[in-house]
């Protein structure tokens, strides 16, 4: 039994915003895979719920006339992962999503919920920030857009006002066209687990030159992060074993993992450095590069 005090259901974005505005204590619930766990633990801030699970206008994957990919935040993980558009253009996102929970969780959990929950281990976050994804947020006064990377403010803190709702996740064509990626989730078991470290790399290779590379980590800092210094250092270099070693060495300066009961900082750094090497290597191979 769950101890909630009020429950309302919205059928549209505008109704969700209105219901949130009516009740300052209300919290959104979509797939429920995070909120119900919190309710189960007796967390009082989830006693008033606005259910947005069935808002059809937020459940889609699409490619617009410019070739930009748009994902409705209420699309469940299974549908995102299996979307032909996603699999064709940004398969790294499908790869990442298929490591989340188990099939039942992925059938319920939504991609927007994963992002708005704001935890550093969100598995869908690293491929999206590596793809320079943007998000659209709608409130009573209209909508605003921002890079997903800036949406994450701190552990379980995101740039979302009480009566705002995420309405789109966008990856522009320029950010994926010609790019190839790879994702690896390091966890204590092969399914039903949260990442100890998550790593996504997206790159572009031309004539054995790494013309662009974007590297993102989960659980390596208070929020999912990009490794800008490393990216800047190696952009434009020729592909080689040495390049991978250099990335692996550089990346530890971009991250700030902490020691918790789940894992020690030193251990996380070991995994971060190893994954930099392996994930970037696989992304380069996917992009048609060769590594001597």
């Amino acid at each position, binding site marked *: *039994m769950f*101890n909630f005090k009020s429950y309302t259901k919205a059928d549209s974005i505008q109704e969700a915003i209105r219901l949130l505005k009516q009740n300052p204590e209300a919290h959104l619930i979509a797939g429920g895979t995070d909120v119900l766990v919190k309710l189960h633990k*007796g967390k009082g801030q989830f006693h008033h719920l606005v259910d947005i699970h069935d808002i059809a206008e937020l459940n889609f994957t699409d490619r617009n006339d410019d070739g930009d990919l748009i994902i409705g935040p209420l699309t469940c993980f299974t549908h995102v992962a299996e979307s032909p558009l996603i699999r064709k253009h940004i398969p790294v996102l499908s790869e990442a999503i298929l490591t989340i929970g*188990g099939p039942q969780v992925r059938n319920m959990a939504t991609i927007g919920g994963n992002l708005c929950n704001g935890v550093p281990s969100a598995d869908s976050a690293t491929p999206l920030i590596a793809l320079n994804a943007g998000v659209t947020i709608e409130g009573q006064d209209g909508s605003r857009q921002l890079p997903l990377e800036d949406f994450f403010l701190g552990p379980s803190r995101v740039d979302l006002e009480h009566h705002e709702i995420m309405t789109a996740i966008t990856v522009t064509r320029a950010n994926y066209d010609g790019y190839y990626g790879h994702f690896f989730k*390091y966890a*204590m*078991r*092969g*399914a*039903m*687990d*949260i990442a*100890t470290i998550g790593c996504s790399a997206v790159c572009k290779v031309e004539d054995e030159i790494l013309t662009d590379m974007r590297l993102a980590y989960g659980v390596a800092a208070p929020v999912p992060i990009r490794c800008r210094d490393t990216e800047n250092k190696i952009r434009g270099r020729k592909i080689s074993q040495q390049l991978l070693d250099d990335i692996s060495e550089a990346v530890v300066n971009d991250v700030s993992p902490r020691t918790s*009961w*789940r*894992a*020690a900082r*030193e*251990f996380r750094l*070991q*995994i971060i450095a*190893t994954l930099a090497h392996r994930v970037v290597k696989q992304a380069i191979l996917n992009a048609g590069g060769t590594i001597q």
Partner: protein
Amino acid sequence: MAIGKSVKRVDAVAKVTGRARYTDDFYIPGMLVAKYLRSTIAHGRVKRIDSSKAKRLAGVEAVYTYEDVSQTKFATAGHPYSLDPAHKDVEDRLLLTQHVRYWGDEIAIVVAENSLILQEALKLVEVEYEEYEPLMTLEASLSKDAREIHAGSNNVIGESQYTVGGKIEDVLAGADIVLQNRYRTQMCQHCHIENHIAYAYMDDLEHIVVVSSTQIPHIARRIVGQALGVPWGRIRVVKPYIGGGFGAKQDVILEPMVAFLTLKLGGRPIKIDLSREECMIGTRTRHPFDVKMRAGVNRDGTLVALDMEALSNTGAYASHGHSVAGAAGAKSRSLYPRAALHYHARTVYTNMPTAGAMRAYGAPQIIFSVDCIIEEAAHKIGMDPVEFRIKNVALQGDVDPLTGERFVSCGLIECLQRGKELIRWDEKRAARPKNQTGPVRRGLGVACFSYASGTYPVCLEIAGARIILNQDASLHIQVGATEIGQGLDTIVAQMAAETIGIPFEDVHVVSTQDTDVAPFDTGAYASRQAYVASNAVFRAARELKAKILEHAGRETGILGGELDILNGEIVDRKDPSRKVVSLKEVALDAYYDKEHGAQLTAEVSHKTRTNAPTFGCTFVEVEVDVPLCSVDIKEIYNVHDSGVILNPVMARGQVHGGVAMGIAAGLYEEMLIDRESGYIYNNNFLDYKIPTVVDVPDIGCEFIETYEPTSGYGNKALGEPPIISPPPAIRNAIWDATGVKINELPMTPHTLFKYFKKAGLL
């Protein structure tokens, strides 16, 4: 013939269709629910408790605190009653406690109409504590100035030892080489799917009915009686279908409390249904061991001595207490019976969750240590680790060096030889480069174990069986032995069908144990059920068969001794193809003839006075990813000598489950507890890492079938043993792959990181 066949489980259809009824499937109108108020400190004393606000909440029926319960302490361990006062279980429990001994200790209980009201009411109980320093390690508990967790205990709950084959120091001194090392095992969890649950009610003014998910209904009856000071005959314990126990339900945990509550509340039905979180904190765990080992070995490959010095951590309350460490030493004694052995163990209280019985009862902890040092000994003298084991392990005809009991059946060497073939040991070792250096390395490992088929002579071994011939010539069999998922009901049906000579399908089993009517048996533990039940079922079946033939003889005019029963027909003993009369006719005649016959039944209660050792081994190949500190099992095989295999598919099921649990203990699972506060971090299945179906590899399983004459059908224990040897085999394989000896469990990436770093691999 039903023995040795993979007949379908008698409960298979009921379980897969969801029709099997478990404790929570029974509802009585007006049933109340209850929930413990658990301490939020690990060690201390409640200075003040005020439940008046909670009592005033609408829907709350009652709140009881430690002030409301009897001050008579009781023991909870699911052991048979002991006539010897010196062998009694430690009585250190009250229904509710003022003295807090672990994080989550039970200081009050709320009874309400539903679980939401319970949650709210628990928040309204005000508690003030006087806090003591939590004693979270063996060292802390044993230090001179440590506060006593239980008054008068010195924080040591028990101590025992044995020495066989000579004075250990002398034998070690005479060995060519002496090795020593120290090994530690972790606190882990049973993780049965059905959490602990029980309810109680009274349907008259005297009798208390307790329905519980328990492995030990008859023991539970006695302990409820003892805890409440109620004559045992006034307690009735009913065990419906049960969703696993693995030892956690070989303990009386909720039954005395629900009985107490129904007594207090005028016989109203009251249920306690623990959440997973409570189950992980507040029931039972596996004892962590800290073992100092020494091995004496000669250069010719003879193991001459093993010295085992074990410290066992029982946590906050005794539960099974020192019995676990004692049994671990006894059950592993059969493995190297020709070596001099010294075993000394002490069991210590700490402010950790309470440890109790868990699958293989201490043997995994001791065998991990034994197999580690054995591996090191083989390595030291340059001998193949399988050959070293084959040279030293038990043989048929060896004797238990302490009891003098002869091993009548023993196929351990054959197990080791078969395992070696299965994994292609020689071929792979020859092909593999020595001193691998790459990031990903492969290794092979082996480990072997001995175990027992019951608890005799430490405890009593008793089983009861009642078989009735029905009017339609089918049988009903009722046993005291308890089906907890292991397949016991199916096995007893096979036994009865085999001995009486009727088709397996014609045997019906009463699955529920109800202490008012079920024959007496102490329950499902120690891998004893099929072994000890066999001796009762066999005798009852033989007796009933004789009665059937006697009646058939009267009916047909042929002497009973000249008849036999084959596939449900009465046949000529000398020419079984000649049918004399159908069993159906005999059954109807026995029931309804006006002058002769009766309901034909047999009931036997039998005490088994033997305890056959059982054996087996694990072979494993691993791939270790050094930079990622991870282990991937490529192949794993368990080979067992469990005597005659009664039902091969079910036996393999036991092995698959046990090996998976062994892999979990080896590589994944551990209760993570804050050293300062005693707070338990991972009391749920997200954070407590049971391996999933994608983590457990295909498991190879074979049996070396021997015949054990001390059981009714040649069988020996198999329930617990498969869990024992996987962890040390994996450890030895990691050593083979990386050159790094991991001396603690679990060998998670965190542990490997620490060891690899120290060894300079990272």
